[in-house]
C-alpha cells in the first residue's frame, strides 16, 4: 500500500472488522483497515461493538448440563471402563 493511496470507504472497513480482529486479512488489507480506523470515528464505534460482540459470544459458552443427562453419560463412561 502506498502512502497516497485513498482511504477505503466505511462499508469496506466495516465489512472486514472481524477479520481485522482475527488477523486473517492480508498484511495490505490489515493496514488499509487500520488506516481507515485512524481517521473514522464511526467505524471505531463499529470496532468497539465487534469486540463486545465477540466477548459476548465467548462468555455465553457456559458448560451447563441437566443432572439426568450428566448421570446417564457418566454411566456410559463407567460401562466403557473409563
Amino acid at each position: 500500500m502506498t502512502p497516497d493511496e485513498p482511504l477505503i470507504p466505511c462499508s469496506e472497513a466495516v465489512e472486514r472488522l472481524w477479520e481485522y480482529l482475527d488477523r486473517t486479512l492480508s498484511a495490505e488489507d490489515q493496514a488499509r483497515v487500520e488506516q481507515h480506523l485512524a481517521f473514522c470515528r464511526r467505524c471505531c464505534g463499529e470496532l468497539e461493538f465487534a469486540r463486545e460482540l465477540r466477548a459476548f459470544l465467548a462468555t455465553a459458552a457456559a458448560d451447563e448440563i441437566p443432572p439426568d443427562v450428566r448421570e446417564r453419560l457418566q454411566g456410559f463412561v463407567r460401562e466403557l471402563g473409563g
Partner: protein
Amino acid sequence: MATQAIPGLYALARRLTDQSPEDLVQECLLRAYRAYGELADDAAGPAWLRRILVNAFRDRLRKEMRSVEEVSVEDVDEFSLYRTLAEEDPFPYSDTLHLDFLRAFGREDVRAVLLRLPVRYRAPLVLRYMEGFSTKEIARLLDEPLGTVLAQLHRGRKRFERELWDYANESGLLAKGAGR
C-alpha cells in the same frame, strides 16, 4: 478424565446441534475410548475430546445431509447491527445502548439464536468464537478449505447479527430491557 469433560462436551454438542446432542457426546466418548491409546498426555485430554466430538459431528452431518442446506442469497450483506441499534434506539434512556442490547440475552437466548443459523455457518462460528479454535484448526476439523471456513465465518457472523436483532424483536427481549 472423560467424566470431568462431560459438561463441556455436552454444552459444545448443544451449541452445534439440537438433534440429540446427548447421542453426539456418547459417540464422542465411544470413539475416545477406542482411540485412547493415541492420547499421549492426559492433560491434553479435554482438547482432544472436543476435537473428537467435532469430528463425530462432521461425520453425522455427512451421513444425514447428503444435500447440503441450500443457502439462499439474502440481504444480510447490508445489515449492520451496530447501526441498526443506533437508528432504532431500543433503549432510549441508556448511555450504553449496544451493551444493554447484548445483556438482554440469556445463555439460552444465545443458543436459540445460534440454532436459527444454517449449520454451515453455525459450526464455524461456535468453534471459533465460543470454543476458541483457530481458523486453521476448524478447517482441519470440518475438512474444508481454509478459504471456505473464512467465508463461512464472515457470512455466519453477519447472519448472527441479523438473527440477534430479529430474535430480540420477536421474543420481546427489547420490551423487557426498555422497562429497566
